[in-house]
């Protein structure tokens, strides 16, 4: 199974006859076509996956730091720092006309950086003859960021607008509020974008401190996926990353554990609008937990496609406009969530009770073998589709590294393939308890005052 899924026949073509690898690296292991190396000088983990589908390659660096590593007063710092990494490093500086984005844009690169609960990642997909530019940029970012106050000030308002855009979205408001309600002690409590006044108030010095604690080769994984020769790639990686020292102090661990939830929690958000939303989330397990594959299969059984149970129960029955099921997979125990915008004219109670009864049915009756087989096939196909493009592989691999390690990405199809209907019923009974549930409602607020009643906001025309 594994070899068919994860070892496309040409993946390793040519690598065995490649020139000798540099002494600077030690070979660690190989799985599913991915070869892991470690830079001896500083502990940088390097993953190589050759994929010659097109003359391009994706280079990505994942840092093991996310909003999970933040605390009161500097929520959002990881993300703001990620933004500042585009402003200036010793070698790539907007003030000298060599901004990272300008250099990459001129190559036609597809690039960005993202921050999430457990990690920050930087990536660029480039024509394969320009791989070195991507490596130079990321090496420069690793210890060379300038982090000037004159960069933070205008970027803070950019990030604040990103926050404001999120506040416009009922889905985002609900998911932030869900985590804030379900997690009280663990830092998943606060959203990756941060609280508004923390975004505004965090100092440049605090961001620098954060950078100096977490941005080191021994807290990062570099990966190259695409059209390259292994020995050449390792030589380039050594040239650009080899001289960066490992951190002097150990990287701090997160030790906060969210205690068990002892009773259903509910919240309501009221804002002007026309469509209500319902969100139900149960506390579950960490990504590396043996229950995760069964929860993933259950996520598909409930939420993927027109024939999924919650789609049939909510959308086919005209109770909801759509339904999204998210079996969150994070480093620490997270949630299994269901989100649905309610069809206008339908009570939110009707949607909430229908979701609860469908979940209760899974707990009491389980799911069918055919449903499990379908979900397993869907997940297997997703993994294969990932291999269609280098940046999708990089994205999936980055998430695996963030929540477990890259071997988990390689093992995942096998883990999913072993899930049975009994496993699904067992995990449903274990996690879908009312005491572990958080219910959130987003309710349209009636407009008061002299204007017209909702749902008819007003257009005013001025000017020529």
């Amino acid at each position, binding site marked *: 199974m594994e070899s068919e899924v994860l070892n496309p026949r040409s993946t390793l073509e040519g690598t065995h006859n490649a020139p000798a690898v540099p002494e600077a690296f030690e070979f660690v292991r190989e799985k599913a076509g991915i070869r892991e190396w470690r830079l001896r000088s500083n502990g940088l983990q390097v993953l190589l996956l050759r994929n010659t589908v097109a003359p391009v390659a994706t280079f990505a660096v994942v840092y093991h730091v996310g909003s999970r590593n933040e605390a009161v007063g500097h929520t959002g710092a990881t993300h703001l720092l990620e933004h500042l990494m585009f402003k200036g490093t010793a070698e790539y500086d907007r003030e000298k006309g060599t901004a990272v*984005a300008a250099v990459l844009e001129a190559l036609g690169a597809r690039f960005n950086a993202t921050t999430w609960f457990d990690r920050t990642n930087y990536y660029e997909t480039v024509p394969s003859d320009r791989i070195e530019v991507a490596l130079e940029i990321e090496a420069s970012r690793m210890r060379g960021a300038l982090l000037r106050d004159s960069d933070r000030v205008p970027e803070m308002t950019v990030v604040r607008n990103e926050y404001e855009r999120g506040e416009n979205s009922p889905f985002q408001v609900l998911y932030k509020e869900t985590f804030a309600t379900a997690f009280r002690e663990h830092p998943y409590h606060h959203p990756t974008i941060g609280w508004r006044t923390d975004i505004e108030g965090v100092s440049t010095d605090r961001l620098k401190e954060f950078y100096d604690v977490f941005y080191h080769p021994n807290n990062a994984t570099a990966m190259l996926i695409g059209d390259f020769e292994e020995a050449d790639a390792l030589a380039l990686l050594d040239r650009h990353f080899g001289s960066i020292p490992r951190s002097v102090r150990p990287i701090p661990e997160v030790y906060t554990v969210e205690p068990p939830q002892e009773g259903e929690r509910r919240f309501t958000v009221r804002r002007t609008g026309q469509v209500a939303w319902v969100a139900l989330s149960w506390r579950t397990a960490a990504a590396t937990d043996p229950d995760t594959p069964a929860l993933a299969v259950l996520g598909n059984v409930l939420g993927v496609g027109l*024939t999924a149970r919650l789609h049939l129960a909510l959308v086919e029955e005209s109770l909801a406009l759509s339904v999204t099921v998210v079996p969150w997979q994070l480093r620490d125990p997270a949630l299994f969530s269901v989100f649905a915008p309610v069809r*206008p004219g339908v009570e939110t109670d009707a949607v909430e009770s229908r979701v609860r009864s469908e979940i209760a049915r899974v707990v009491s009756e389980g799911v069918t073998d055919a449903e499990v087989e379908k979900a397993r096939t869907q997940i297997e*196909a997703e993994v*294969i589709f990932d291999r*269609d493009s280098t940046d999708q592989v990089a994205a999936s691999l980055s998430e695996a590294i963030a929540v477990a390690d890259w071997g988990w990405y390689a093992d995942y199809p096998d883990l999913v393939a072993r899930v049975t209907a009994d496993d699904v019923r067992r995990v449903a009974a274990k996690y879908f308890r009312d005491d572990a549930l958080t219910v959130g409602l987003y309710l349209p607020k009636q407009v008061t005052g002299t204007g017209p009643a909702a749902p008819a*906001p007003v257009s005013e025309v*001025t*000017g020529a």
Partner: protein
Amino acid sequence: MSAPPLPKRKVPFVEAIRERTLANGARFLVLENHFNPTVAISGSLNAGGLYAPPDRRLIASFTAGELAKGTARRTKLEIAEELESRGASLSFSAGSGDPVGVDVGAASLSRDVEILLDVLAEVLLTPAFPEEELEKERMRLVGVVREQQDQTSARAFEAVSRKIYPPNHPFHRRTAEERIAAIESLRRDELQRFYDERYGAGTLLLVVVGDVESGKILDGLERRLGGWRSGPPREIPRPPAVAPAPGEETVVMPDKASADVILAQPAGLERASPDYLPCVLANSALGQSSLTSRLGVRVRDTEGLTYGIHSGFSATHLGGPYAVSLTVKPESRDAAVAATLQEIQRFRKEGMTAKELDDEKTSHVGRFKVDLASNGGIAHAVDSAVYYGLGVAYLDEYPSLVEAVSKEDADACFAKRVDPDRFTIVSAGSFGGPEGSSVTESAVSSEGGSHSQTSPVP
């Protein structure tokens, strides 16, 4: 400094692609790519909103959306089960961005490609438009329209398209209440008639890319679709040209932390026009990227007024608007609009720099290659090149076509299509007084002088 040479594809597209056109007009192209055991299909046929009555444009998107909701042989859920049990997907959509075409998209593991083609042919040739599915979709779509009314971006887009384009124009967007009334009154026989009149092999184009045997796919497509009626010819009636209608409008929406602002004007740039590449290169320098284009550097990077600012031409078979869109907190709107207009004016006056043109050329050629790195990306590129009449050879010639664009061409094309003094400016968000307030003052009125500021740019 000119663009560094990029490695060439080993086999040109014109040689790698196998193509067949049937007697009924259907056109198929297949490219084998055996790296990964998947297949992607991208295609189109001319049955978009342009061909529906002006007051019933949504018949087109409705018809496309209902194709897979049941056939002569199977129900919606039986069809969905066939695809979903294999992790395969199939979709038909007619959006307002391209009023001419219905987009066909499909993907599966290559071992399932015959089943995917079976379903594709079944829903194209024998849709049943069951009444009960129609009723469910009416109810859902009314909700979706209401949901869009809560979105600042959708409200700004609707308002600007109404302000620029007259009611019968394919780019005009009806009000939410008008659309809801149209959805609720839509009858099954209207869909059936639109399908009977507009759907046929004469305009059908399907591009298949992936781990397949091209001969087998071409034969299979011919066997399944060779007997379909030709249907209407490929003609595309052009709506009359529209003159800019400068002015401003504010859509007041309470409780929105971020506002959407769109500056737009009709530009009439068609995808197949010789002006297309020069115009697109010029626009890239001005506003294609929030991070590196002039608008992004000024309004986001330097002034910190927005998370995102983009500009672009809508160029399909029909020339649509040129639009700049950005998000801001409401209090920052006037400063952001003033800075935006100032940059556009400066760009229009001075044109691109030589470095900008060089960078945009390498960027476009490089991005083109990066986008061709997946079966889906290749299928989409081939589909577009053929759909817009550019031909498969266009994909091979693209780098040299980009390289041939001069600064004079780019500046002249942009100046011909975009006039900084003729924008329609629409904002949607929490402007003005308390919630529910029905009146707001637009501070970006033309009297305010923000259009004609010429102060130096930092």
